[in-house]
């Protein structure tokens, strides 16, 4: 493991210097769009609070994920005319991976939250200067809503981060399709194994819920399902959940090591 944080920072600076004009245009456009949307929504419904336009913020972070993880992350290795230079740049593979990880996992969402906060300040100032009386409030980044935004982004990060190095083009579309196939396959497999091992339970359950499939892991023993100790099942689920994060991040690192050009 060869990681020098100064070199990682230099790598990030170099990568962003080489994309500066495109990035500045994109961020400016995004920021302007965000402000305009906040302004419009709050003008239409003057009683709306900033919490009421959480959907806008959620959409915004989704766009950030699409842009950062879909187009920006690991893009230095995708164009054959550029990738020779980046592959032979004196930084270890761990440092190149970490630079992309830090930007996509930490810097991008934090910058977004700050942009939302700044945008809400601009909109609020605009309302005050226009003399419009609205219930619009400045966004508080250190709030449950801010944490929710970050959590949502971080949950989708590992898969998209892996997709960013695995696929060359249409990263988001291909990764989503891949995940849909995997999840669908897993559901069918789980159902099939369950039906093989515990046919009565599965059949009873279908009768009980009129065909609606419900997944409940910490239910009561008398519900007709197999009893699983709540603590144990939660532990297993959490391990699987966070383990999948680690799995995709490690996979993305291994994939980066395989890149040839």
């Amino acid at each position, binding site marked *: 493991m*060869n990681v020098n944080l100064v070199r990682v920072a230099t790598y990030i600076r170099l990568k962003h210097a080489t994309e500066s004009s495109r990035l500045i245009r994109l961020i400016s456009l995004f920021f302007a769009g965000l402000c305009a949307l906040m302004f419009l929504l709050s003008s239409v419904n003057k009683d709306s609070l900033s919490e009421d336009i959480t959907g806008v913020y959620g959409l915004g972070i989704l766009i950030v994920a699409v842009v950062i993880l879909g187009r920006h992350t690991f893009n230095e290795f995708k164009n054959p005319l550029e*990738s020779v*230079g980046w*592959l032979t740049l*004196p930084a270890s593979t761990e440092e190149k991976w970490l630079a992309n990880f830090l930007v996509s996992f930490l810097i991008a969402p934090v910058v977004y939250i700050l942009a939302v906060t700044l945008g809400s300040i601009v909109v609020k100032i605009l309302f005050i200067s226009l003399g419009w009386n609205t219930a619009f409030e400045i966004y508080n980044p250190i709030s449950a809503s801010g944490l929710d935004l970050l959590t949502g982004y971080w949950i989708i990060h590992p898969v998209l981060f892996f997709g960013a190095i695995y696929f060359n083009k249409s990263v988001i579309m291909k990764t989503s399709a891949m995940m849909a196939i995997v999840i669908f396959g897993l559901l069918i497999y789980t159902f099939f194994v369950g039906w093989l091992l515990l046919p009565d339970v599965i059949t009873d359950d279908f009768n009980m819920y009129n065909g609606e499939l419900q997944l409940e892991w910490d239910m009561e023993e008398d519900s007709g399902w197999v009893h699983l100790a709540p603590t144990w099942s939660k532990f297993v689920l959490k391990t699987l959940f966070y383990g999948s994060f680690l799995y995709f991040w490690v996979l993305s690192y291994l994939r980066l090591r395989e890149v040839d050009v």
Partner: protein
Amino acid sequence: MINIDSLNFSYVSGIRRSQPVLNNLSMDIPPGRSVGVLGANGVGKSTLLRLIAGTLTPDFASDRGTFQVLNHFPRDRSLDFLQQIFIVPESFELPDISGHWYADRLCGFYPLFDAELFSDLLQRFELDHHHILSEMSFGQKKKFLVAFALATRCPLILMDEPTNGMDIPSKSAFRDAVIETQRDDQTILISTHQVRDLESIIDSVVLMNNDVSSWVDLNLLYQSISQVNGDSELPILYSETRLGSPVSLVAAALDNHTDIDLELLFNAFHYNSDGLLNAIQSTEANKEASA
């Protein structure tokens, strides 16, 4: 510096490997040399440079001991290895920022980078470092990257067709820059079709075709072969007519030898690689035997 023994490489197409590009390639290149990589189209000159730079994985990559560059297996892309090499690819893109800004950020990765030399080379190449790189012509971009490569002071510099796109004064400036800046322990490998551009720079060549490859020291070549103008009764390896008179390479060491024309050597290898390499190797074998 570069030790290659039976290197094989084929590009992967889908899940299978295609026809081999490099087949049992072997050579040993000592440090401190200026090497021209000469070969016809498609023999794998650029591929060889990329393998040496570690951006491609050779076939049978587990056999690491047979492919060592600066005492590293290049494909490991270890930090220590990457700090010692710089590659100027044949085609590349430069970003949308000024040369000064770009170099300022990139030089931090190269511990031996010589900023003064870089500035001097830019002047020689008549480049303005405040100019936006993406707006430069192809030749200007090449000159910028060559200047940066030489300024890194890396022990191994690889250049793939560096004079492509350069005008005549720039080619001359390129030759001067390489000759004047190369250090004793630094090796420069230049792959090109335009052998005349290299004549004053290189002291050895890697001759490659689809079947065989060999590193040849040009300083010792006169011990095995000679260039003869006019008719000759010596065993001719290759001959061509220039201005109505034959010019030949013969398998003999002449007392009054002249410099061997690189283009003639290249053609001799292209049309009679076995004869040429046998002539060179038999002299080396005789020398070893007498020693």
